[in-house]
């Protein structure tokens, strides 16, 4: 990633009747970056992508592509290409004809056209399929044709609208890695729309989490996962526990909630003295079962409510003494977790660093950590 932005979105909004599909979206997407727009359906991610492509006209705001304002430029004149959710391959053309479509329209000389088509078909591993029609290809192969058809034009940025949605799980995982490899090989800026948080975490350099038309957080995968800026992000990315912590004590940069019998819940002090209750998130895989109370650790009593075998991990739902439900993922490296039957009383705990306070309620609190994170990554 470089400091120069390939795509700049400034105050980009789209209104359909009374509904705001996109609400003043501000994003800087760097040259050669794999950037994901992540969110549930209806969060405005596809609308935002289509405004970059030029298929939707923004109600307000601007789109800058490679330093040029393209807000009102027709999609055919924008140096971006799109991979559609349904691939949108031309059914009456062969694989080679599909791939060559853009080059033919821009009147690329025949020899160069043949050379570029052959090169891109090789790079998506479709040699030998040039003469086939889309109907004769598998889902994964169609996906690769769609990719080749867009990439052969050497776009300034490639826009992908949930391109793996129609594939089965195994193929999707393979294609995720392949997409990432192709992106790194070509150095093309990818803007990737998905509702699948795992997909976004796997591939992206940075992720913008969207909700209700707004960008909630822009950060790299690790930060979005470990340091969610808002409750929505915490809830949407992976399985997460959202717990409320009553501030009983403040000491040495931590806040603590005393629960009696040596039990307590601790978290780093978010520094807002006036707040008496804060929200924290705890990732299920950070929680240990059967820990002893100790300094720098949260330790609570709870009762196992549910025990579900998930393959590599066992998922325990623990009803805490505070009345809240805590999801715990125990690695199945021994028989320990599977023996914890519902009803069993256990102690659970996690290290201080794994209690992550969420900037809730405070003015600008939601934006604070995300801005900081963004600056960090760009620098």
């Amino acid at each position: 990633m470089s400091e120069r932005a390939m795509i700049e979105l400034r105050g980009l909004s789209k209104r359909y009747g009374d509904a705001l599909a996109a609400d003043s979206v501000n994003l800087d997407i760097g040259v050669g970056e794999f950037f994901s727009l992540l969110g549930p359906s209806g969060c405005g991610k596809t609308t935002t992508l289509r405004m970059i492509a030029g298929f939707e006209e923004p109600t307000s705001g601007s789109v800058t592509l490679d330093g040029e304002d393209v807000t009102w430029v027709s999609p055919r004149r924008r140096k971006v290409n799109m991979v559609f959710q349904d691939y949108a391959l031309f059914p009456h053309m062969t694989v080679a004809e599909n791939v060559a479509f853009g080059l033919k329209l821009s009147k690329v000389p025949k020899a160069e056209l043949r050379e570029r088509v052959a090169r891109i078909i090789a790079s998506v591993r479709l040699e030998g399929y040039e003469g086939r029609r889309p109907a004769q290809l598998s889902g994964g192969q169609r996906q690769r044709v769609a990719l080749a058809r867009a990439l052969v034009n050497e776009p300034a940025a490639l826009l992908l609208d949930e391109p793996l949605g129609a594939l089965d799980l195994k193929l999707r995982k393979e294609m995720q890695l392949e997409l990432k490899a192709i992106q790194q090989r070509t150095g093309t800026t990818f803007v990737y729309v998905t509702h699948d948080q795992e997909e976004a975490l796997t591939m992206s350099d940075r992720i913008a989490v969207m909700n209700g038309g707004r960008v909630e957080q822009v950060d790299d995968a690790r930060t979005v996962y470990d340091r969610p800026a808002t409750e929505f992000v915490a809830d949407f990315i992976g399985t997460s526990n959202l717990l409320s912590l009553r501030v009983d004590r403040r000491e040495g940069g931590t806040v603590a909630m005393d629960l009696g019998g040596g039990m307590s819940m601790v978290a780093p002090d978010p520094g807002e003295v006036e707040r008496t209750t804060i929200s924290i998130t705890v990732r299920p895989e950070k929680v240990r079962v059967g820990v002893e109370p100790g300094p720098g650790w949260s330790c609570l009593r709870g009762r196992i409510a549910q025990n579900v075998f998930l393959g590599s991990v066992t998922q325990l739902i623990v009803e805490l003494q505070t009345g809240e439900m805590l999801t715990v993922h125990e690695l199945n490296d021994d028989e320990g977790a599977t023996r914890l039957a519902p009803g069993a009383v256990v102690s659970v705990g996690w290290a201080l660093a794994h209690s992550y306070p969420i900037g809730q309620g405070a003015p600008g609190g939601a934006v604070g950590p995300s801005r900081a994170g963004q600056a960090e990554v760009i620098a």
Partner: protein
Amino acid sequence: MPLRYRFTRALPKAASVALVAFALLVLFGPVLLLALFSFNDSAIISLPWEGFTTRWYSEAFSSGEALDSIVNSLNVAAIVTVASVVLGSMAAWGLTRLRFAGRTALAGVHGAVLVVPWLIIGVGGLIFFSQIEWQLSLTTVTLMQIVTTFPLVVAVMSAALVRFSPSLEEAAVDLGASQLQMLRHVVLPQVAPSLAASAIFAFAWSFNNFEISFFTGGFQQTFPVWVFSVLRHSTNLPIVNAASTVIAGAQLLIVFGLWWAMKLMNRRGGGDDVALAEIMTGGMR
């Protein structure tokens, strides 16, 4: 497998074959019978068989009226087909791709024309043309037939365009195609079978139409009107019979030819036979 089970399993298939055979017999039996009797050496269509003859055919086509009416019908049908396919495709494009107030109402009006009896449309046309004092002629017949035929094309082409994924159009534009290039390279090859189907239907509707041609026609007759006029004398029956057999045979050949052409186009377009069946029934939905 016990015989009883084999029998109960075969029953539905046998029943459906019998049903189709019966339907075909009722539909085409009389037509085939008439075609057969057009070679009978008798003015009365009944047994006994009086001997083989082709004289009805030579009589039919030696009368200038029969030939003239066929030529008239062909001319009218050709113009109606071209005009309906062009107008109908354009209307279908607008109705499926543009968003404007009153779009559904306008689509409804197109559909309504298909269910109003031709008799009423024919009489309506007659009153209209006499009100504006237009001389009835083949021109008025052609105009009225375009009015009734192009909504059929709208129905067939709308079905095709609705099935056609808009993302294909977006993909073409995204790859740098102008609207015209998009239509030429992406949309047209995809909807070609539907265009052919529209043409077949439009031609058949126009050629076979009696009511509208009868009411809005002048001295020049179309073929169905000629048939009607000569049938008033029962002695002419074998002549009509012979001429109709020739026309029906020719139509059958044309439709089959176009059907094969469509199949070929559809294959080229990457579609299967199911898609083709959908195109053919698109106008019926």
